[in-house]
């Protein structure tokens, strides 16, 4: 991938060591989600999206990312969270997912991108069956990061 853009570009090797995992920490509403850094291709500033009539509500449109037209997914809709206006912190995280054995690029809206960090896989908390407004199958696991609970979502399941 060329590096001619002014946008912050993150190219992190998915270097999952024993017990730890590199993630990109993003904020959606009040929650923090950790995306597997191995999936993330780049992080870009918001670009105007084209709405696709008749599409599933959580992939409402498409965007142009350097000549490729890719779907734009809004996880907030999938998680039943309120959708807020774009702010100065809003970013689009471009991830590459494996859907039906084919790599598919998807732009994911994030209210804020915090940092690239390592989380512990050994400190996994069991996904509670109650007290959550998300479907349990959307969650890979919940872990602790700086005394906060963060959710590692299962992107393939969320978008399929």
């Amino acid at each position, binding site marked *: 991938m060329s590096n001619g853009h002014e946008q912050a570009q993150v190219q992190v090797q998915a270097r999952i060591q024993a017990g730890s995992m590199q993630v990109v920490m993003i904020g959606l509403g009040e929650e923090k989600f950790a995306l597997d850094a191995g999936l993330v291709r780049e992080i870009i500033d918001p670009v105007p999206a*084209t709405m696709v*009539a008749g599409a599933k509500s959580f*992939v409402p449109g*498409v965007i*142009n990312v350097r*000549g490729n037209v890719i779907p734009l*997914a809004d996880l907030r809709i999938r998680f039943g969270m309120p959708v807020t206006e774009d702010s100065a912190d809003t970013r689009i995280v471009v991830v590459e997912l494996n859907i039906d054995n084919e790599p*598919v690029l998807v732009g994911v809206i994030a209210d804020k991108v915090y940092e690239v960090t390592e989380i512990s896989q050994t400190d996994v908390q069991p996904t509670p069956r109650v007290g959550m407004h998300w479907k349990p199958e959307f969650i890979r696991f919940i872990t602790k990061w700086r005394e906060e609970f963060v959710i590692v979502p299962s992107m393939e399941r969320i978008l399929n």
Partner: protein
Amino acid sequence: MSSIDPTEVFRQEASELFETLEGALLDLCQRPDDRELVDSAFRALHTIKGSGAMFGFDKVAAFTHEFETAFELVRKGEIKPTQELIAVALAAKDYIRALIEAPDGTDSIIGDAILDDLKQFVALPGEPAKPDVAEEAPAAKPAAHAGWRLYLEFDSHILCNGSNPLDLLDDLCKLGSCFAVPVIDGIPMLEELEPEYCYLKWDVTLHSDCDKAAIDDVFMFVEDEMKLTLTPLAAQAEVSLPEPGLLIELVEAEPIAEVAPVAEAVPAPVQAKEPAAKEVAAPAEQRRDEPKRSDEPKRSENIATVRVQAERLDELMDRVGELVIAQARLTQLAASGSDLSIKMIAEEIERLAASLRDTTMGARMVPIGSLFGRFRRLVHDLSRDLNKPVEFVTVGEDTELDKTMIECLADPLVHLIRNAIDHGIEDNDKRAAAGKTERGRIELTAVHSGAQVLVTVKDNGGGLNTARIRAKAEEQGLIAPSVALSDNEIHQFLFHPGFSTAQTISALSGRGVGMDVVKRTIENMRGSIDLTTRPGEGTTVTLRLPLTLAIIEGLLIRVGGGRYIIPLSAVEECVELMPEDQRSRGRNFLNVRGNLVPFLKLRELLVVPGSPDQHQKTIIISTGETRVGLVADQIIGNHQTVIKSLSKLHSDVTIFSGAAILGDGTAALILDVAQLVAAAQAQSEKQISEAA
């Protein structure tokens, strides 16, 4: 690319040779007297044999040798290539191909059977022919015993190709005692001498009892680059042999003749040199002419080409597409500024990008002739199996189409041609009764028409039986008996899945699968099918196809805040939507020059919020037989663009066939008009049933 499997190279080469061979054989059906065709078939065979042996395909070499021997009589002109003979030859060709593709899995019994057939046909013209051959062979043998006199004239470029005439002479020596005398009259003056050219010719006397084929084998790989004159050596020929001493004399005499006048007087050499120069020039010209003449039939087909992987071309096309988009943005930016030099650069880049796009598109274009060639065999076999003599004519083989389109076109055309022979062309009795020529005629044409290519399959058979199609459609419950339909509308039933009027199912057609597949394939390629027929005169099926799948010529429109592209091939006209046309919601149609055209409001279909613009525009599109108006807020204009397919996550959205990137970098969706109309139909049917 560095390590290429030589066997693979041979396979590729062989497959090209097979095409030549098959083409020549099929042409022979039409022009049995054309010696050129026999020769070109023979050449292809010979090369397959030679390189087959070289790459270890011994079975191939052995069989081809037998085949070649049998064919030799045809080459000598003693036997006319009959239809039967050509059919066997084609079977033999298929067998050789099978031998090459699966050397172990091919049964040699088939080969033996083919050879038996072949020998039968070759011997068939009769008992008189056989003794003839027998007589000739012994007659030729004693002459051959004495040996051969060979005159070798190589192409002057032969050294550049890595061939060494001396090695060939060595090979020749292995056949028997050999005496070679170089002929040096072609050697130019020193200052004109090209060190890499071969100026020498050889006069060779070979004392050997080998036959002509053995000598031909020596020169097999250079036979296109040389002239070989072979004469059997009679006993007295030995007398005319130049003596070794003479050779030296010749060599010495030449320079002396040159030098002598120089010593004598100054003006003389000018005169002396002139004729010498002419002499040199003349043979050079001759030589240049000769290969040209022999290559001419080939040259038109094999223009120097480079094999490139199709994916690389696709990638290149993608990059160029991105470049065009980036360039459009640059142009927009430059136009909004006031810097003249940036504007100039933007214009220059615009020009370059456009020509780069055209070149890249051109690189993906392939003449459709490569596809047409495949059908000649199909027609040949079908006409033999069905006992319907058919003349197959192709027009416009040079017409260029995107490579992927050509691949996609193969199957639909097979269906159409099969249909034309099986259903279209009547059998012999019917043709005779109708006063038609015995041979049916199928014409396959390709022609450019604007930004489209029209591919036509035309037969001169009985035409479609409209009444029978209608009866069948009624029987299958596709239409009510009383409904009035135009002939054209009735013919559309042919494209229904499972629709067939054939009473019996043949091996070829009649199952009712086929035409619907044809239609679907063509529509997937954004093309359309026209069907015209005249009872008793034949049927014409025309496929209208875009030039390429990668780029779309579209009409850019605006609905609310969103921009959409309608494929220009579907657009018929644009009209303004008059206030009186939208009086009520229950009555959505226009009056276009007396015709009723229903319209759909894109705003409602695409769920666009807000209120419509004051002056609504209607774009009238046609899909199949229906014309529909699409109401938009604004028509922006023509837009040629690279198509980007929508991702898997949007595979449930049918009304868009893809997306394109506009000059400002945003994506616009391309409307799939057929799906759009179908979706609207489903919607209005639902509304009606809800209301009822």
